[in-house]
C-alpha cells in the first residue's frame, strides 16, 4: 500500500475547507430558511452564546476536563498495573479476565446510578464512572503488547544471560509501547464520554457544574445556543485529548514504529 504523499498544507487545508463549507451552508440554511433559534441556532449565534456565557461555560469546561483527566490518569495507572498482573501468569488472566470484560460490556449508564449512590463525593463518583469506561482499551492493549515480544529477541536476551529485570526494561516495555499508545488514544476519548455520560446520569444530584449539566439545563430552559456552545466545547475537548495522545505517541515512538512512520523514513 503506497499511499500518495500529499503536501502538508493540503492535508491541513482540505479538512479546513470542508469545515468552512459546512459552516457556511449551515449559516445560509438557518438564516434563509428562517429556522427558529430554539431549533437550530446559526453558527454565529452559537459563538455569541459561547462568548456571553463564557464565565459559566468556562467553569463547566474546567470541571469536565478535571474529571476526564483524573479518570484518564487513573485508568492509565490501573490499566497498566492490571495488565502487568495478568501477564505474570496465564492462571491469573484466565481467572480474572472474564470479569474485566463483564465490567466493560455492562453499559456505564446502568452502573452509574449505583456508584453515585455509593460514593458520597460527587466528583469521585464521576471519576470512577469515567475510569471504568476508559480502562479496558489500556488493559487489553497493554496485555497484547507485553505478550507480543519477538521470540527471537527473547532468545537473544537469554543467550546473553539477561536478568528478568533487563528483559522487562529493555525488551517487554519497549515492545509494548505502540500497543499501549494505541490504547491510550482510544481511552482518552472514552474518558471524556464516561465523564459526560456519568454527569448526565447524576443530573442535578451530581456536582452540578460540568458541561453535561449545562447541556441538561440549557435543554430544560430551551436555551439552545448555549446548549450548542457546550456541545462545541465537549467536541473540542475530545479533539484536543486525541491530539494530545497522538502527540505523546509520536514523541515516544516517533522514529521507529510503523504507525508513526513518515515518508522521510523510506528504506534506503
Amino acid at each position: 500500500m503506497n499511499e500518495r504523499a500529499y503536501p502538508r498544507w493540503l492535508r491541513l487545508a482540505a479538512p479546513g475547507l470542508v469545515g468552512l463549507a459546512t459552516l457556511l451552508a449551515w449559516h445560509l440554511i438557518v438564516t434563509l430558511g428562517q429556522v427558529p433559534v430554539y431549533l437550530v441556532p446559526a453558527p454565529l449565534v452559537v459563538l455569541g452564546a459561547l462568548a456571553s456565557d463564557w464565565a459559566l461555560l468556562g467553569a463547566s469546561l474546567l470541571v469536565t476536563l478535571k474529571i476526564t483527566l483524573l479518570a484518564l490518569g487513573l485508568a492509565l495507572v490501573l490499566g497498566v498495573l492490571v495488565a502487568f498482573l495478568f501477564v505474570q501468569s496465564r492462571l491469573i488472566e484466565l481467572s480474572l479476565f472474564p470479569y474485566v470484560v463483564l465490567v466493560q460490556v455492562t453499559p456505564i449508564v446502568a452502573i452509574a446510578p449505583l456508584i453515585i449512590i455509593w460514593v458520597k463525593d460527587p466528583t469521585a463518583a464521576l471519576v470512577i464512572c469515567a475510569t471504568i469506561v476508559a480502562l479496558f482499551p489500556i488493559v487489553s492493549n497493554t496485555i497484547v503488547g507485553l505478550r507480543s515480544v519477538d521470540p527471537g529477541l527473547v532468545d537473544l536476551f537469554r543467550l546473553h544471560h539477561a536478568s528478568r529485570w533487563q528483559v522487562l526494561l529493555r525488551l517487554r516495555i519497549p515492545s509494548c509501547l505502540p500497543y499501549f499508545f494505541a490504547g491510550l488514544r482510544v481511552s482518552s476519548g472514552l474518558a471524556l464520554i464516561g465523564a459526560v455520560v456519568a454527569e448526565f446520569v447524576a443530573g442535578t444530584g451530581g456536582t452540578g457544574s460540568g458541561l453535561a449539566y449545562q447541556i441538561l439545563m440549557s435543554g430544560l430552559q430551551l436555551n439552545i445556543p448555549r446548549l450548542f456552545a457546550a456541545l462545541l466545547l465537549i467536541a473540542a475537548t475530545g479533539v484536543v485529548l486525541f491530539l494530545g495522545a497522538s502527540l505523546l505517541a509520536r514523541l515516544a515512538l516517533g522514529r521507529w514504529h510503523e504507525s508513526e512512520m513518515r515518508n522521510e523514513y523510506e528504506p534506503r
Partner: protein
Amino acid sequence: MNSCAEQVVRTEAPLVRVRQVSKTFRGGVRALDPVDLDIERGEFLTLIGPSGCGKSTLLRLIAGLVTPSGGRVDVAAGASRRAFVFQTPTLMPWASVADNVRLPLDLEGTTAPEARERVAAALARVGLQEFSRAYPRELSGGMQMRVSIARALITDPALLLMDEPFAALDEITRARLDRDLLGLWTGTPLTVVFVTHSISEAVLLSNRVVVMSARPGRLLDAIRVDEPYPRERGFALSERHARLCAQLGGLLEAASGAGPDE
C-alpha cells in the same frame, strides 16, 4: 559417522562435543534422534538437510537455548561465549543500529567508553560505520543482517551459530554476504556452525558439511571441502565445486528419502 573428521589428526580437543543428544518436544514431536558431533576449533561447519529435520533444534541445543531430552553437549572452557545469528535479523526496532549492536555489551555491563569503541569497530567490520545512527527500518534486508552479524561478533565469541541467516535475501545480496562472512572468519580462531538449505552455499563456505536426515533428525554423512582459504572467486564456478555439489546433492536426496515428507 564422520569418517572425514576421523582422518584429520588433531592435537586439541574439540570445541564442542555433542554426545547422544536427542530432543523430543512437549507434545511428542521427535525432532532429533541421538546425535554425536564434534565441532573442531576454528572450523566452518555447515549443517544441511530437508526442512523440519531438526537443524535449528540442534543449533539451539548447542547454544543452550534448548535443553536436550537425552545426552550431553560439552563445551570446552574457552567457548562459553556463544553468539547466534537468526534467520531474520531480529533487531530491536526502537533502537538505533549502534544501540542494537551494543546490546550484548549492555547486558553484560560493559562500561560506556569501551562499548562505544567496540561498537564502532564491529560496525566497521561489516561495513556499516556510517549507519550507526540509522534505525533498522531504514535499512535494507542485507544491511539489517549485517547489523545482526556485527551484534553477534561484538562479544568476541569463540563459537558463532548461524541459522539460515541469508535464506530470506536475494541471490546477489546473499552472494555478497557469503563472501564477506568468509572474509570475517578467515584467519581468525572463530568457529562457525552454519545452517543452510543451499547446497552451493554449503560447499562455498565450509570446511565440512554434515547432512541430516528427515525427521526425526540424525546425522547421516559428512563431506569435507579441502579447498584452501581465502577461496578464489572462481571456486564457485569451478569443476571441483560442481563435483562437490553433486556429491552433496546425492547425499541430500538420500537423506530426504529416508523420512516421511518430501
